[in-house]
């Protein structure tokens, strides 16, 4: 089935205007583990959506089902109206070019240089021989340099990825994803391997870049405080179901109990005054 066909299958009316519309998404792993149990989620404006939930709640599965690194068992995922789940291999590859992904373990090709890693975001637009010769269009090279500057790594283009610190690697990961000029950013625990200060810098960078490019971002995140500080909206997952979905300010101890279970949450949630301070 081609992308055009998929578009023809009329999506639900509210989903038609949505940038991203996830509809009844189910994932059952071969072992029988039901990681996603009919997840519905609609993102209709360019916003940062934090997905929180305990380990094993299905956050990674949700994100990976969207670009089909994990094959969904049922349901639909529409990006600007096109159902990704219904795409054939070729169309899926084209679709993936429009979706940037950032990983907890950075997943840079360790033995390649920073520039090669950033430019790999454009592989979809060049052929095999060009990739072999590492020949990218001048326009791409220029925007790679610009992005490196933007993420604070100007001058690092020829450094090998395995010589970078964690924070620097994640900046390369961000540049690689943005190199795709994505219509959607999928971000899986971007700060879980970083120290608290670097984590905040990275979240700030992701937020401002996503806003600049007017690109919606789905961010799986462990740290509730970070989610509150840098997301516009928080989605709570529990055992593969959405149990919370509201603006970040609405995250209450009651909501956290619903997502994570009983605990004293008052010290986890940041008072509103602090938030104003952080923003300055």
């Amino acid at each position, binding site marked *: 089935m081609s992308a055009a066909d998929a578009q023809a299958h009329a999506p639900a009316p509210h989903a038609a205007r949505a940038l991203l519309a996830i509809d009844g998404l189910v994932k059952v792993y071969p072992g029988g583990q039901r990681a996603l149990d009919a997840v519905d989620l609609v993102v209709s404006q360019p916003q940062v959506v934090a997905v929180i939930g305990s380990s094993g709640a299905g956050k990674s599965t949700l994100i990976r089902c969207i670009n089909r690194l994990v094959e969904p068992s049922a349901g639909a995922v529409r990006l600007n109206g096109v159902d990704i789940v219904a795409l054939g291999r070729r169309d899926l590859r084209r679709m993936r070019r429009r979706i940037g992904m950032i990983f907890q373990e950075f997943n840079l*090709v360790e033995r390649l240089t920073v520039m090669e890693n950033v430019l790999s975001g454009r592989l*979809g637009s060049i052929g095999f021989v060009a990739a072999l010769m590492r020949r990218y269009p001048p326009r791409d090279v220029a925007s790679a340099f610009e992005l490196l500057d933007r993420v604070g790594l100007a001058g690092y283009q020829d450094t090998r990825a395995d010589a970078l610190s964690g924070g620097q690697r994640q900046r390369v990961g961000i540049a690689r994803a943005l190199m795709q000029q994505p219509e959607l950013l999928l971000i899986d625990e971007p700060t879980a391997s970083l120290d608290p200060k670097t984590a905040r810098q990275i979240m700030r960078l992701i937020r401002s870049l996503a806003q600049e490019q007017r690109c919606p971002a789905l961010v799986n995140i462990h740290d509730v405080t970070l989610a509150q500080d840098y997301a516009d909206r928080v989605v709570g997952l529990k055992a593969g179901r959405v149990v919370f979905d509201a603006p970040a300010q609405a995250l209450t101890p009651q909501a956290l109990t619903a997502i994570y279970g009983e605990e004293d949450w008052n010290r986890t949630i940041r008072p509103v005054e602090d938030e104003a301070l952080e923003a300055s």
Partner: protein
Amino acid sequence: MSDAASAKRYPEVWRRRSLRESLLGWCWAVVLAAAAVWSVSALDIEWAFFADAHEQAGDLLRRMWPPRWSYLPAIVKPLIETIHIATLGTAIAVVLSVPLAFLAARNTTLNGFTWAIGRSLLVASRSVNTVIWGLVFVAIFGPGPVAGIAAVAARSVGFLAKLVAEAIEEADSGQVEAVQATGASTAQVYLVAVLPQVMPVLIGTTVYRWDINVRESSVLGFVGAGGIGLYLYASINQFAWQQVLVVLLAILAVVLAAEALSAYARARIS
């Protein structure tokens, strides 16, 4: 607390192996001994030859000494040819081994059928000795270095591809997924995300194989596949033992140099 501790009794005996494992170990020892005895008795060894072996060896050494150094200039060219055979054979093997490795690695092959083809080619290449490959290619190309190069390549391709295929199977899947997620084609993913990861193994085994190939090329001349082996073979047939010693020393020098170079190169891979 001390009451509780004294109340509970812990075992005082602990053995590394259970009785069953020990018995199994002894069984293996007996089987190995029986196999050795059987091999020796089946081989029909002429024990009388052992009695004067030391005299024969001494006699041979006396006939070899002193080495006839005047023969050295005549074998410089075939020595260089030997190195060329090893180098060209290795180079051809590298080019062929990369696609073969991707075919024979479980995570990059197309399907079960292509995997089986890849594995069969690996086994075919590896199970035949270089000298036997030499015989085959002398029959095809006629005697000379071309047959030697083909023989070295045929044997090395499986050796390299097997080790590279293993490295491919152990490649970090996170790096692969990240490049997949950008919408790259499968071939591009292999090129950009897998190949760099196996590069150290590819280079290391290539250099190592080249060093083995220099050694193996030195006997390829025995079957007419070029190189110094022809001269060694001829000298032995003429009982020109002083010449044989020169050839052997020259081979030793080249092999040692190749091994040192290969060890140095492998130590520098990062």
